């Protein structure tokens, strides 16, 4: 795959279709991949990589990149295309300046999960399809790829590209049977005290590093409301428990109906807070109360929170059908 992508990137750069390419390059460690912009074939040959750790959703970078001169080639995995479409809907990306090549994705691995399995001192990782061979300073280990996938990939919602100019490989299907709401349902079935304890435990870990906000393609405001002095809620460091509550509830609320469930927030959280469970709660509620809706499926139209029907349920439904 990486080979075909490099080939395509060079071709499109060569024939002038695009003048830049956004993709991934290796960082300090084997699993430490970072998004990167390439401007010529030499740079691509030197650094371009596409492997099981290229989880980053590149859509958000296009907000800035698509405003620059010339067309940019972007490689988007199926779930990234949903974010892209949503950003098109919000007029954040200049579509003419982007050339999308859809690339297949069989799930991305999480270095965090590998480490959680007790493997430390990693010096290199190589893949032989279903398994990873992990070289560590203590010797080599083998782990099954399926055991170390990102959470979002274990419950992948779609392998279909909703927008692209060109595809590498076959397009996949929407996975109607994704079990992505199972954990939300599990939480809903806990008692209020248990849920409170769960979230207090999770949210109190928050250090307000804003990584979730920075990576989220839906959280793409020029200036965040929490940085807006006129909003009355601007604040920086979290001093007490309330502020993480406020920040994360409002953040999830602001992206409700716009969040494509790409899972980047949880992937980047240095404290491993399962932030996606907040977003998924909204998605689940929206699906159940207002009809199935997948943000990013369309590039125009209204989101569930910018529309209504006269027959919508009353908030008292929370008492009737809410959590236990």
């Amino acid at each position: 795959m990486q080979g075909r992508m490099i080939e395509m990137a060079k071709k499109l750069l060569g024939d002038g279709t695009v003048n830049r390419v956004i993709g991934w390059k290796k960082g300090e460690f084997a699993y430490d991949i970072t998004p990167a912009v390439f401007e010529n074939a030499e740079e691509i040959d030197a650094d371009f990589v596409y492997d099981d750790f290229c989880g980053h959703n590149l859509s958000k970078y296009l907000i800035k990149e698509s405003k620059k001169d010339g067309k940019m080639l972007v490689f988007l995995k199926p779930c990234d295309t949903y974010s892209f479409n949503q950003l098109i809907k919000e007029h954040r990306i200049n579509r003419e300046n982007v050339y999308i090549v859809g690339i297949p994705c069989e799930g991305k691995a999480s270095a965090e999960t590998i480490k959680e399995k007790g493997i430390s001192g990693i010096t290199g990782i190589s893949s032989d399809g279903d398994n990873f061979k992990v070289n560590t300073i203590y010797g080599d280990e083998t782990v099954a790829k399926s055991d170390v996938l990102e959470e979002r990939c274990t419950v992948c919602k779609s392998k279909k590209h909703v927008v692209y100019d060109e595809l590498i490989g076959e397009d996949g299907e929407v996975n109607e049977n994704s079990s992505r709401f199972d954990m939300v349902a599990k939480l809903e079935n806990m008692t209020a005290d248990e849920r409170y304890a769960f979230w207090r435990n999770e949210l109190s870990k928050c250090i307000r590093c804003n990584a979730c906000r920075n990576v989220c393609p839906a959280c793409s405001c020029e200036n965040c409301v929490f940085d807006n002095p006129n909003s009355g809620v601007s604040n920086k460091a979290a001093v007490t428990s309330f502020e993480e509550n406020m920040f994360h509830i409002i953040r999830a609320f602001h992206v409700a109906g716009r969040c494509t469930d790409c899972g980047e927030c949880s992937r980047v959280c240095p404290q491993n807070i399962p932030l996606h469970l907040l977003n998924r709660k909204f998605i689940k509620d929206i699906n159940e109360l207002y009809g199935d809706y997948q943000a990013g499926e369309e590039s125009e139209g209204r989101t569930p929170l910018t529309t209504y029907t006269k027959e919508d349920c009353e908030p008292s439904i929370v008492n009737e059908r809410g959590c236990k």
Partner: protein
Amino acid sequence: MQINNEFKPKIVAFCCNWCSYAGADLAGTNRLNYPADVKIIRVPCSCRVNPMFILRAFQRGADGVIICGCHPGDCHYTSGNYYARRRITLLFSMLDYLGIERERTRLEWVSAAEGAKFSATMNEFAETIIKLGENKRLEDLRCKAE
């Protein structure tokens, strides 16, 4: 804040200018009593109520927050309360999900003619909040230190 061991809840009521605020005025005109713990904030429309206001109230130690607006279909601005209904439903559901007592929040449609309903609703809500006791789960401790 506890005087003589009697719990005096802080209840914030957001009322839309055209229906519910007028309904509250009518309750006054008709001398329909409800607890003094309820304090009303006037907003143009229920769709002006930002979830941040609700969370802010809880942060500052409110024990209950109630939002009142025109009945669906009667919004002065035609559609405001429909948007509000979706937003507030989702927010309430989220608070419930986070383990916050769901009785602490409420939305009620009160028309300008429903003074009696306004008063009854406030009595009932205040009673519920008194039963629940002090808001511990969403408060900001700094704001309580006096």
